Every structure is written in structure tokens, then in C-alpha cells.
């Protein structure tokens, strides 16, 4: 079946199976920043923004997204570059597998919260798992990004 999506600001008509998930649709259309980790709604690496809201692309049927705006890091280049400056500065980056999902979650946080506390940050990113870091540097980087780039 055909579904009209706005992928990173570009209108696309994609052909999908009834049980195809957004993660597969995106990767099939060369949006490769979106990663597959658990494929079971438990790790957050597949996070994208759907109409601005962080959502697990592994668990949403593509066919339900008619007319929705899907944003990945490819569609947020400027903001992502800003975000990664803080990540680099704070040494929050290791293998990088979790970064796209985490970056989109942090960007959505910037657009949703006024002055989030460290607790707010930890709660918001709790399900963006990172197997390399201990989250300390990541939280520090997100805090600076939210404070200094707003």
C-alpha cells in the first residue's frame, strides 16, 4: 500500500507492507542514521521525531503515518551539529551507535522544556540506552547544550 510521508521535509510516497515498521521503511529509503538495536521498544536507538515527538520507529507501523512529518538527524543537520559540539567537548561520545536517537531526544527536549533540571534530563533520556558511556558525560553535554544553545 502507498503512504505519503514527509521525510526530513521532503514529500515521499512510499510503498509499504501492512506489517512494516517505520524503522525498516526509513532504512530501505537510505535514511541510515536510524539504527536497530533491540527491535523491541527497549533501547531507544531507533528514535525519530514524528510530528516533532520522539518516537520509537521500530514499533510504529508505517501504514499508520499518512501525512506525518518524520525527522531524523539527516533533517536536523544544523541543530545536530550544535548538539555534537557539546558532546565532543564533554567526551560523551564513544562508538556513536546511540547518538542519533539521543540527539533527537535532546533536540525535542530543547523544544519542549524551559530550563529542565538534571533530573528532568535523566528522566527524559532514561530509555536511550548507551552501552559504552556511563551517562555522566552525556548528561553534562545535554545540560550545557540546553542551557547555552537556547
Amino acid at each position: 500500500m502507498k503512504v505519503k510521508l514527509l521525510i526530513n521535509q521532503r514529500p515521499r510516497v512510499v510503498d509499504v507492507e501492512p506489517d512494516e515498521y517505520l524503522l525498516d521503511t526509513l532504512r530501505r529509503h537510505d535514511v541510515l542514521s536510524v539504527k536497530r538495536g533491540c527491535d523491541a521498544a527497549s533501547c531507544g536507538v531507533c528514535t525519530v521525531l514524528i510530528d516533532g515527538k520522539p518516537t520509537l520507529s521500530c514499533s510504529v507501523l508505517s501504514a499508520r503515518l499518512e501525512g506525518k512529518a518524520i525527522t531524523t538527524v539527516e533533517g536536523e543537520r544544523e541543530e545536530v551539529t550544535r548538539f555534537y559540539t557539546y558532546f565532543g567537548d564533554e567526551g560523551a561520545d564513544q562508538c556513536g551507535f546511540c547518538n542519533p536517537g539521543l540527539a533527537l531526544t535532546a533536540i525535542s527536549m530543547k523544544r519542549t522544556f524551559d530550563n529542565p533540571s538534571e533530573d528532568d534530563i535523566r528522566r527524559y533520556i532514561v530509555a536511550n540506552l548507551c552501552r559504552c558511556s556511563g551517562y555522566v558525560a552525556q548528561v553534562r553535554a545535554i545540560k550545557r547544550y540546553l542551557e547555552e544553545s537556547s
Partner: protein
Amino acid sequence: MKIASLYHPKDVNDALRVSRESKDTVVFGGGAWLKLSPRRVERAVLLDTLNLAEIRVHDDAVVIGAMCTLRSMETHEAILDIGQGILVDALEQIMGVGLRNIATIGGSVMGKYGFSDILPVLLALEASLTFAEAKEMSLESFMASKKRMNDVLLEVSIPRKKAIGYFKKVATTPLDFSLLNVTVVKTDTRITVVLGSRPGGAMGHDVTEYINGANDIDKAVKRAVESVLEAIPLGQNVRATKAYREQLAKTYVRRGLLEVMRDES
């Protein structure tokens, strides 16, 4: 879950009719839980276009459409108001925003999950349900029934009463299921304790008679805690033993009762 076709019903009666046509048809909420199922179905009935995602605020109740996501609930002012934010406390402890932007209240109720952090709070708040065919039913009757409800859930309604609430989720990590969760809700007329993840489905117990009018609060709370442990069976599964759950219940029911009483003074 493997799905052969999707169906967009034209109204709730159509959804009900189609969902009953065959055992190979399944009603979809957000689909986050169903995705994990190894089943193959012929047809998934999607309720997306039936205007079931709204939250309506009436004088006497907050009415939540079955397709409302957990995240839309936790960010809604009327939900924040209920029991001094007890429902939001519980919702915020379910995985992350990425899942809560998908999972719906309809799927959370109809799944009747033993591990649920939402059902115990809704039970303590005396929520009721509206179905396409069965119409009105208290959540308590729904939870008590062993029968599978072959109906389409339309709404969850929470009475707007002055209430003070306490919710505690005990879990090994922030993303894990509860080993036990404890809800205490005090209204003008009633104090209810609900235990969830026992590991079976949530069960409630009214402790008003032990607390109201008591002179010695410590003694009254002790008797109330004992009555909860007598009335609500706790058990064992891979997450925790029965003895551990009992210890947790003793501690957190006591804390919850003291907290809802302190909040009042």
C-alpha cells in the same frame, strides 16, 4: 506480529463487527505490545480515525479516549490534577517518552497486564470503562472478571474527586517491570490501597475503617497494613519471591498511608 491486512473501520460499530468476524482479527491500540507477539493475524483493526484520542474534562470526570497515548495523558493538566499527580507519577515511570508516545491507554487497560503500573492507580481512583457493546463497566469488575472481553474499549473515565495519592514502583532498574507497586488513594470518604505486580493483576483493599477516627495513628496504620496483607495475596515469579514482596508491601503501604495522612494535615 505478522499482519496480512489493515482495516480502517468507518465507526465504532464497524470496528466491533469486524473485530468479531474471525479469531484472526486483532484490535490495535498503539501496537507497541502487539508488535512483540509471535502471532500471525489476517486483519488488524486500526482505530486511528475514530476520534478516540482526546481527553475531555467534565465537572465530575476526566474522560480519556482509548487511543490517547500515555505521553498525551501525562502532559495534560487535568491528569496532573488527579490525586495530586499520582497518575502522572505512575505514567512517567513506564520506559521512556519514545514508547509513551506510542502506547495507548486502551491497550494498557485491555492487556490487563499483571505488571501494569497504570491499572493499580486507575483502580484506586475508581475509574470506569465504556465499551462499544457492553457500554459502562467499573474497572474493578473488568479486572475481577476472568472472561476475555471481546469488545472495543472506547473510553476510560476517572471521577474528579478531591484525592491525595501515593504511588511507589519498586523495580530492579528504571526500565524494568515492577517487582511490586503500591498505590494509596485517600478521598473524603475512603482510603484505598492497591497492590500491583503481585505478580498477578492489581487488587485493592479498603482500609478506611482502620484509619478514620483512630487516636493512635501508628497502631491504626499497623492494623491497616496487616489487613492489606491478609486481603491481597502476593506470590512468587522470576522477579521476586513471595517473602520479598511481603516485606516490600509492609514498608511501602505503611509509608503510603502515612504520606496521604500527612498531606492532609
